[in-house]
């Protein structure tokens, strides 16, 4: 009995809970403490290449060269990250996805995007997450 209790304690201490990436909806659903924020207030005037864009120690980049644009004719300086056109020029979705990472190598546990695409009734997402260069989650919705 004592050995059983000891083994249970060892299992609880030694193995952190396994977790997969989950998609959440709503403010605070994935980010309980905001450590970094990108507001894109300096975009899109003047337009810049979003293939190399960084803000607040966050890299937010397109897979290929894509100039920032005003979403659906919105005013300049309205604080949007939006590449002109859609995906890049590659063959698969996986190759065309935009990248979000920290620029100093710090690992993230929560990421939240506020998107407000007024001209579209609904938008579908496709995504992948990586840890140590290994795919740890992917889906579309």
């Amino acid at each position: 009995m004592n050995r059983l209790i000891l083994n249970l304690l060892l299992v609880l201490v030694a193995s952190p809970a396994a977790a997969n990436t989950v998609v959440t909806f709503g403010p605070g659903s994935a980010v309980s403490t905001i450590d970094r924020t990108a507001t894109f207030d300096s975009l899109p005037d003047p337009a810049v290449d979003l293939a190399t864009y960084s803000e607040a120690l966050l890299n937010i980049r397109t897979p290929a060269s894509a100039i920032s644009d005003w979403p659906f004719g919105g005013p300049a300086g309205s604080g949007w990250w939006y590449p002109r056109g859609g995906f890049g020029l590659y063959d698969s979705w996986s190759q065309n996805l935009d990248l979000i990472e920290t620029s100093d190598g710090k690992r993230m546990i929560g990421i939240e995007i506020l998107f407000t695409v007024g001209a579209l009734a609904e938008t579908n997402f496709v995504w992948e997450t990586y840890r140590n260069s290994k795919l740890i989650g992917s889906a579309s919705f």
Partner: protein
Amino acid sequence: MTPQPGTVVGWLDNSGIDELHVGTFVDMSNGSWRDNGLAISTLNVDLKGRAVPAPSTAFLVGTALFGIGLVYWWRVRRS
């Protein structure tokens, strides 16, 4: 669920994420899809490995006393 404009979409992984690759597309009514540039108004990030406040001395002393009491109780019970 297909997100509506103004929705906050999040990704949560307590083990940590190094990179998020994400894109958007529009599902057409005829079964095909059309690619669509991702538009972000605000991006918020929660980092892993934030400093955890050290437990108070009172908590540590209390835990130690509880452990000693538990051992004492166990020995008395066995004898």
